[in-house]
């Protein structure tokens, strides 16, 4: 069922009786050509693009709980492609372009809002680093602008520039960055994939792989064995747990990242803003909540909740640049499991086991990657070759010394 202006009006006038399920609750079949493990944004996008772009069929997405229940349902909704390194920037720019056409493609309004993202600069060295980054973005075909403090203050008149511990010396803006209604991304991909025949199977947990002679034949699940020609793992924070069933150790640690939302407020923040001298970034949702976050808590965790020190650290950062949010109230805090990789960049690659593929290591940045991650993973699954924008995301880059380390923090995941 396509959503259209006509349909919307008709349903409004007839009591909404005609809307059907956004996606079917499929029962698992005994085998598929492709089994995607993980009904998050990336997994659903992968299934969608496999069907749409690579004309594949007999595709299932297995989700242990409810779709969209992982990080796509608990992030701070930011999209951007302001990366420095050539291993990353083309991929994220590809993703941003897919975001720009997403709603028409999916026939689903995920409220992609290109309100712009701004990273504040506080030191000369930071300006040098951001200049290099902005240039790298532009050389990769993305947009970037170095803004002056005066330009920033014009946009954010309540920014603390007079009493700042760390002065604001400008900022690097990407005006095409912005926010997206995160849950709707999962639902939009689910609906569009379902319409192309993908089976979305909720409450189906993968408990093992059936591997014979170095080839993966399918997955053991809480709902029985499901055979597959190709199995694509796509489970973000649960990557190590899942792949341990295939005997693999990963260059990944799972960490908790907290995020926060305030009560609904009349609009004040025009775009996404990131404090470069503390740990704070913030945007305002279409419902009026200030959506903000900062650093990961820093210790391995699968608990989906964090602790007070980081809450306080983030709010300190917020008050440092926006002392007018002091009387806004924090409404809710939550945590997601981040698959923090050893260089801060993801892995999209074949494994040493035939027919078994891996997509993970997204750190705290997987949401913005959702469309491209799905697209390039589908490319890899369908063609067995990496997509041109994702050639660097290999397992063996650590052995070869070809790390993609945006922050230069080395092999310590909690610093990325």
């Amino acid at each position, binding site marked *: 069922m396509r959503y259209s202006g006509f349909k919307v009006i008709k349903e409004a006038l007839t009591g909404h009786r005609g809307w059907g399920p956004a996606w079917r609750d499929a029962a698992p079949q005994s085998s598929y050509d492709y089994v995607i493990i993980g009904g998050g944004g990336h997994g659903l996008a992968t299934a969608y693009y496999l069907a749409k772009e690579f004309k594949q069929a007999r595709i299932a997405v297995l989700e242990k709980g409810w779709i969209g229940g992982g990080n796509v349902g608990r992030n701070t909704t930011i999209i951007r492609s302001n990366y420095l390194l050539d291993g990353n920037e083309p991929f994220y720019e590809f993703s941003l372009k897919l975001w720009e056409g997403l709603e028409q493609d999916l026939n689903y309004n995920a409220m992609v809002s290109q309100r712009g993202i701004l990273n504040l600069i506080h030191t000369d060295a930071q300006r040098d680093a951001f200049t*290099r980054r902005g240039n790298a973005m532009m050389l990769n075909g993305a947009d970037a602008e170095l803004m002056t403090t005066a330009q920033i203050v014009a946009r954010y008149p309540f920014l603390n520039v007079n009493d700042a511990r*760390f002065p604001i010396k400008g900022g690097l803006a990407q005006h095409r960055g912005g926010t997206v209604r995160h849950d709707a991304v999962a639902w939009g991909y689910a609906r569009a994939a379902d319409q192309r025949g993908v089976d979305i199977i909720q409450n189906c947990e993968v408990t093992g792989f059936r591997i014979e002679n170095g080839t993966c034949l399918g997955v053991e699940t809480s709902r029985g064995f499901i055979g597959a020609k190709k199995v694509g793992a796509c489970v973000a924070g649960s990557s190590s747990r899942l792949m341990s069933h295939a005997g693999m150790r990963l260059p990944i640690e799972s960490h908790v990242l907290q995020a926060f939302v305030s009560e609904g407020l*009349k609009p004040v923040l025009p775009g996404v803003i990131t404090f470069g001298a503390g740990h704070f970034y913030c945007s305002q*949702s279409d419902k009026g909540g200030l959506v903000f976050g900062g650093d990961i808590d820093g210790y391995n965790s699968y608990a989906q909740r964090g602790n007070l020190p980081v809450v*306080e650290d983030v709010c300190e950062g917020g008050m440092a640049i926006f*002392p007018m949010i002091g009387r806004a109230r924090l409404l*809710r805090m939550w945590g997601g499991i981040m698959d923090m990789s050893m260089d801060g960049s993801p892995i999209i690659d074949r494994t040493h086991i035939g027919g078994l593929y891996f997509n993970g290591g997204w750190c705290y940045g997987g949401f913005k990657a959702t469309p491209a991650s799905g697209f390039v993973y589908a490319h890899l699954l369908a063609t067995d070759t990496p997509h041109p924008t994702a050639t660097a995301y290999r397992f063996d880059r650590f052995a070869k010394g070809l790390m993609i380390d945006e922050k230069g923090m080395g092999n310590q995941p909690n610093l990325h």
Partner: protein
Amino acid sequence: MTQVNRLAGGLIDRSRTISFRFDDKWMKGHPGDTLASALLANGVRLMGRSFKYHRPRGPLSAGSEEPNAIVELRDGARREPNTRATTAELFDGLTAQSQNRWPSLAFDALAINDRLSNFFAAGFYYKTFMWPAAFWEKLYEPIIRRAAGLGSLSLQADPDSYDKGYLHCDLLIIGAGPAGLAAALTAGESGLNVILADEDSLPGGRLNIETYGLGQQSGADWAAEATERLAALPNVRLMTRTTVLGAFDHGIYGALERVSDHLPVPPEGKPRQILWRIYSRRAILAAGATERPIVFENNDRPGIMLAGSLRAYANRWAATPAPEIAVFTNNDDGHRTAQDLRAKGVTVAAVIDTRAQAPKGNGYEVIAGGTVTNTSGRLGLSRIEVTDARGSRRTIRCGALGVSGGWNPNVSLTCHQRGRPTWNADIHAFVPGGTLPEGMVVAGAANGLFSTHAALTSGADIAARIATELGHSATRPDLPQAEDTPLAITPFWHVKGAKRAWVDQQNDVTAKDVKLAHQENFVSVEHLKRYTTLGMATDQGKTSNTAGLAIMAEVAGKSIPEVGTTMFRPPYTPTAIGAFAGRARGKDFRPTRKTPSHFWAEEQGAVFVEVGMWLRAQWFPRPGETHWRQSVDREVLQTRASVGICDVTTLGKIDVQGADAAAFLNKIYCNAFAKLPVGRTRYGLMLREDGIAMDDGTAARLAEDHFVVTTTTANAVTVYRHMEFVRQCLCPDMDVQLISTTEAWAQFSVAGPNARKLLQKVVDPKFDISNEGFPFMACGEITVCGGLRARLFRISFSGELAYEIAVPTRYGDAMIRRLMEAGREFDVVAYGTEALGVMRIEKGHAAGNELNGTTTALNLGMGKMVSTNKDSIGAVLSRREGLNAPDALRLVGLRPVDRSKPVPAGAHLMTKGSPVDAAHDQGYVTSACYSPNLGHSIALAFLKSGDTRMGEILRLVSPLTGFDHEVEVVSAHFVDPEGERLRA
């Protein structure tokens, strides 16, 4: 306006009358009132508008669960949006504005949304606003955003301050109702260190609301007496106006104390609020229960509220929304409301009880087996339509309707970790379940024990048990006789009908929306919440979640526990962001570190720059200098011509001692240290274990078993931590001891051809610092100025003949003055970090911009330093092929072909004639400056195969800043490439 709906009695202070303003009306109330109770007493029911449909709303509750009566409290910079009128304590002069309405609360233009509600069903925006594609951002979204949100921020800096604090206790008791008070008396009198926290200003919980007695006393009197007993115990800290907002790991709770919110402004020097981090060994959750409504058509009009709240307003605050009320209930508690209000002289028009076997009325009509099927009244309830057991309808006139669908234990804090509530079929509610936070036990109504007797005894029993477990002999107080009525409830959630019936009142989620979600397969409870926004408003669904689940259960053909529950997350009630930040804002966001010469530099009019937490002098302007470059150029030229002095205290300094000190340095540095003679200093490059350069500095050997190691300013802390890791975890049996001495010494660089001459005037004559006696890279312990002990290092960052001299920090101020005085004859200059940077770029020294966490020794041109004769951290992984590619980046110098052009940092390099894009990127500029010695701009850069490209002309591009011109690759050593000056 008079207080038309003020009743007799109550716990308000009628001896004083205070004034307050709501929108443009001034009214009167009494101390003890909340804003909501005072408004009700003044005949005001309409207090707000709902989020989506802008429906007129009044208070639903009398507490922190309130979804509707939320206002902007106070004026100006203290304006506080979304404040619950039901918990805002009245003070003289209070002002409040209604919100989410225009132009006025009574006439709101966006109430048009209510007429268009057919279009605005759950999830409507996901299906629409897509045509044409470009209209979303230009048209639809701006309209949606303009309508978004509820209250407004002032956009001014919060003028109040917040404290953060830390408390320790054996037992934290959350909630000072009957269970909490009984627990506190028991634990306190048993000798435990107890914190009793309650969000209310008055301890007692529902004891202050109900009319039944405790023993011979009223509930309120018993609570007051118990409070007095607790106040007399030094081991009990009673914290009112304190909301325990979250249960964190290992018995740590967050709590917000509202110190000054009941006052017009906080007293001088005092905080508005305090965020407490409470470390508890045990906790008792005695947070009580929240009443839940029944869902029926048009159940959201001002005047329709929870029955228990109606009773609370009458009994505690002596206020009623209207002189004539009705009650709609599925349990006996609703009848208590009717009785209490009748006793207060309020007319009870009827009690509509969904149960066929309802109790008889006591002076009012009971409609057994009846339901409320509709209501009317545009800005406040005027009539309800009742359908009786036989299906016949009638209209009853009333200005308020108390609704009771039963009570939900306040399980929120039990869910903050892994706890998932379980369904209790006796009380038809979720009770704490699963794994509770470590150390937490739940008492009283929060655990589903709804009678006062059960609350008191469960609180005392649990506290006694905890006291025993913690090694105290439990002393149980005598508890009074209290009501022990069994809960009589027959679940009834939802009066079916064709019109809209509100489930989540603030977010305007109706029963139809829940059904639509189910129809579209948003069946999982999380999908239900996210698709409809049920439970996502400022009240987080405290009064709405259960009804939403019940309706979903009904349409899905499941039981309520099968539908499940969403997660309760902290904070328990919304909490000011300022409180989480505490004093860390403005200039106090982080501490400021000042160098030993700071006060002197201030006197010189230095311009300071933030370097991490440090403030360092960036340059020292002289009269007549109008541009920073003039100052910096002068500092550089004068230093290179004669002598300059710079405070370099901020560099990290670590004392390394022990028999294995040299072996230890061999381990942490990639180059060799074992054979460094005593009295000599060596440059050291430290790698991370992944083979990337971590930091650089010098190590001075003061004795066989004693080194002083320096780090960069930025990495002082991380390098120390890394060294301790190597010492304790990798080399636990090395005899080596580490301690930071960064701040113990004030250290100054004295650089330039006259540096020695200057120092000779200060260093005591018995120390030979001639070129022969103290050659390049020498170090030693000396005395200065007639006997002050000092350290001298002949090291140079500038490329000049240079020393670093260190004296005990407290003499740093005197030392810089003495050095400047001694240097006057050489026209000595003080230089700041900017000149320091210029000179190190001129000399080709790597610094933070080059040691950026991705570069190797090879990239830095120091590949040969990585010793292959010994093991050092990072050596093995530095040998990976990708880090040793033939076209690896190399540090080079650049100068502009057109000498008038800059070579800006952050620019990228392209081979001449190649396309300008990322695929053809050859490298990037790391550090750049204008060299006053060379008279043009210079830069350091990383360039692919740079070591073999000397003399090549490259294209420098910086599309971001608009540069595109040619540069020449040169040696990074722009000044004195042979190092003759260093050794002079």
